[in-house]
């Protein structure tokens, strides 16, 4: 398999020699990486070249990579994901150690442990810079060239990443395994921040048994919630989440009856919630999300971070 096959030789040519870079590349030119030829294509563990660092990048020796619950389905073919049109390495998050540093990198150091984020946003000062999830998907058609460049993810021994896709963590008490969990928490944290979740508030989490929803329950507690209402369909899994997250968590099993579910959420929230979080992926109806909306007190915020296959119908006067 040639370098050019992976788009590496051409990129090296484009960015010139690496004489201005701090090099401490691995002592071998090859690594093992999982390579997917495309949705439903071959998925194999292959010996491939280790990418060279270039300006603005770091090479990370991966130490822990979390496996998405839907990775198997993604490899087989998932609708609504924009795959690269060339072979690539899947894998979104992870943690590792910086093995080489490119030029134009001012803070991240060789040998530093880093958390890797797949969420990249083009750094130009424009209204709507392209965004993408490395090792997973482009977000919009205009992000395709950006994604093609940074398509390779974390299911490999080494990852070449733009320096702003890594965050150094110097605390040795945090294992790389622990740091690999942080991507799971980062997503709901983004929604809690965006919705201005504040200490002393009560949060309703719709979809609390999922990977992101259960992480949202933990985070809302960590951020000082008075109560966290963990709502979902599976009462056994809700009980597990409530047990793991502590005594401020109130599980509510949703029935699909909007009126009854709204009443149950409001009651568990002590009369009403300040914040509601919709984390349900691929919802087939709007009932659970609407129950979340209706559980809010006056001035409440509903943050949507899941997905829904049908429109979300709103009653104007209820929102106003």
């Amino acid at each position, binding site marked *: 398999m040639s370098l050019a096959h992976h788009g590496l030789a051409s990129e090296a040519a484009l960015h010139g020699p690496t004489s201005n870079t701090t090099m401490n590349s691995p002592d071998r030119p090859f690594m093992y990486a999982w390579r997917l030829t495309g949705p439903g294509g071959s998925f194999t563990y292959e010996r491939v070249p280790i990418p060279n660092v270039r300006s603005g990048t770091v090479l990370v020796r991966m130490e822990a990579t979390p496996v998405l619950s839907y990775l198997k389905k993604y490899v087989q073919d998932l609708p609504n994901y924009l795959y690269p049109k060339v072979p690539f390495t899947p894998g979104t998050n992870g943690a590792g150690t910086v093995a080489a540093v490119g030029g134009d990198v001012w803070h991240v150091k060789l040998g530093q442990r880093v958390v890797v984020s797949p*969420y990249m946003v083009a750094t130009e000062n424009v209204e709507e810079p392209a965004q993408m999830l490395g090792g997973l998907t482009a977000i919009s058609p205009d992000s395709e060239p950006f994604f093609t460049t940074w398509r390779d993810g974390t299911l490999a021994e080494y990852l070449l990443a733009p320096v702003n896709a890594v965050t150094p963590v110097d605390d040795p008490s945090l294992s790389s395994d622990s740091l690999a969990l942080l991507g799971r928490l980062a997503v709901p944290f983004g929604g809690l921040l965006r919705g201005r979740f504040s200490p002393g508030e009560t949060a309703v989490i719709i979809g609390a048994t999922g990977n992101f929803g259960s*992480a949202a329950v933990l985070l809302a507690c960590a951020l000082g919630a008075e109560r966290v209402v963990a709502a979902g369909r599976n009462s056994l899994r809700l009980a597990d989440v409530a047990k793991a997250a502590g005594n401020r968590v109130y599980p509510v099993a949703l029935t699909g009856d909007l009126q009854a579910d709204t009443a149950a959420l409001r009651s568990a929230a002590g009369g009403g919630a300040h914040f509601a979080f919709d984390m349900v992926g691929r919802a087939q109806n709007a009932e659970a999300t609407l129950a979340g909306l209706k559980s809010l007190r006056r001035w409440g915020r509903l943050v*949507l971070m899941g997905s829904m296959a049908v429109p979300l119908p709103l009653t104007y006067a209820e929102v106003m």
Partner: protein
Amino acid sequence: MNNLEIIGHFMYPPNVFMKLVALIRPGLLDLRAIQMQRFSLADLPAAMDAAETAGGLSCTIVTPS
């Protein structure tokens, strides 16, 4: 009248990992609530099967050998 806000949101700000570490270090956020199961990177197919059936508060990790 309820003065509600409905906010669509995608992902997180760039400093979110620093904020998470700052919650973990003093013990405000305890990652032990999330069960980890580990596989080697070469064993990814087995790890994918495990991840598919694992519960919400569990995480499947692969590590290069």
